[in-house]
């Protein structure tokens, strides 16, 4: 009896292994940032825009640096080197992993999506349907506005850093934006923010197009059960599933949900093969 319960527990854990790992990652980073401010830890100072790691070097958000560059201000070498490290890491190795492994807003929007499914507010009842390509326009618009206004336009309204700052330094009225985001994903459009609008996701999608770590699909194993489609936040990237073997590209954020739910070993993390 107890053995059986344990077995189902282990099975459930295994079925959510990447999800649990991701949450540990996201919450752990948040804890390190918070610890720096509350208890004086020195592992990770700053936030998702710019972090001072181990008091040795900086990691900077390349999208923020791009906006600042557009305003006409040349940042310090520390910040530029930090941005280069981050950009190269995602572009060469991890792809769009930031969104599902690092970004704290992902936890909010995932909660909204989860509730949306539980409450059966299904896709057909989207109050607003718009293209997933909108985010690339938002990305471009942000850069143009930065240049016109002389202030990093997305950083002014960035809910990612706003959430982080809110948790650590106090929200002010900023919590309204986070709640608005949550309600938007819950009631208005499925995957509305992360999957349609966020320019940072667009930035990393574009940057990580040829990254090494990608999810590989083998069509021979696929039984067309469609479970991966039901969990994927960027369904359009799964167009090859069941049709041809190959790598999942474009906006895939390497979250690994599809790998977990696949019972047929048709999806797995892999290293991108540049030859085909």
């Amino acid at each position, binding site marked *: 009896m107890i053995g059986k319960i344990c077995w189902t527990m282990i099975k459930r854990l295994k079925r959510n292994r990447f999800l649990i790992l991701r949450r540990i990652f996201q919450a752990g980073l948040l804890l390190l940032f918070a610890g720096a401010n509350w208890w004086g830890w020195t592992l990770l100072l700053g936030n998702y825009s710019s972090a001072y790691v181990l008091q040795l070097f900086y990691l900077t958000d390349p999208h923020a640096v791009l906006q600042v560059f557009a305003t006409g201000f040349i940042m310090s070498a520390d910040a530029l080197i930090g941005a280069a490290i981050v950009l190269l890491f995602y572009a060469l190795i991890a792809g769009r992993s930031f969104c599902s492994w690092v970004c704290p807003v992902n936890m909010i929007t995932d909660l909204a999506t989860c509730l949306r499914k539980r409450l059966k507010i299904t896709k057909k009842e989207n109050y607003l349907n718009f293209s997933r390509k909108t985010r690339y326009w938002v990305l471009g618009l942000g850069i143009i506005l930065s240049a016109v206004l002389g202030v990093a336009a997305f950083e002014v309204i960035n809910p990612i850093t706003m959430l982080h*700052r809110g948790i650590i330094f106090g929200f002010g009225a900023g919590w309204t934006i986070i709640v608005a985001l949550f309600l938007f994903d819950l009631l208005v459009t499925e995957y509305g923010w992360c999957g349609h609008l966020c320019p940072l996701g667009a930035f990393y999608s574009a940057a990580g197009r040829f990254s090494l770590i990608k999810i590989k699909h083998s069509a021979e194993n696929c039984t067309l059960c469609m479970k991966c489609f039901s969990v994927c936040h960027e369904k359009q990237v799964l167009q090859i599933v069941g049709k041809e073997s190959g790598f999942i590209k474009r906006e895939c954020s390497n979250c690994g949900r599809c790998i977990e739910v696949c019972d047929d070993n048709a999806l797995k993390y892999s290293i991108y093969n540049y030859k085909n």
Partner: protein
Amino acid sequence: MKTMFRGAGFLGLGGAIWGNAAYKLKASELTLRPPGAVAEKDFVKACVRCGTCVEACPYNTLMLATIDDHTAIGTPYFKPRNIPCYMCTDVPCVPVCPSGALDLKTIAREVGGKKTDEPDINKAKMGVAVIDKDACLAFWGIQCDACYRACPLMGTAITIEFRRNERTGKHAFLEPVVQRDVCTGCGLCEHACITEKAAIFVLPRNIATGKVGEHYIKGWEREDEQRLHNLKEKKEKETSPEDVLNDWEDLLDDD
């Protein structure tokens, strides 16, 4: 074609709303910045809003602006009446800044006219203290030198001027006077002020200061007078006003 127009419409609408919000949120003329901050216009551009300076501040002086603070969101500022800048000699908030928004060069210690890598907090220009004489007890004739004594540059940034109290005929006013070129804007005076609402308070420098202009010269000061001699003579224009007046050919029609 129809979808293109619709897309362009949404893009324009989105851009207008976003642009307005961003513009509103960046206006921050009345905000006091940490020591070593570059000019406000560049500061809002440069700051990545990471909060490292806030974390470095040992007195919890610095705060990060939230939406309701009427300044660029996420940027550091301080309110001296709550917690002033205590002018740490090692200035921990400045060297941690990754972006260049807080620049050590602006407060570099000078040794023999040369800038060093060491910070000198007394060179900080966070703002300048302003006194409301009507609310200041010292100007009433009541003895109070709270601001004078709280000032980390006592006797240089705030000086005391003595004036005879004609009302009583036997007392003196001990009036505090801010020397604006020395004042760092740390706000210790504002914090110490004993009145209900501070009679001495720090304002950003560009708000609290005027400017005479280059064309006025203090003839009684040798250094300033030298400026006059250093001026390069402007070349006389070759055309005199008379030439212009007599040049009426353009006014005539050819016909």
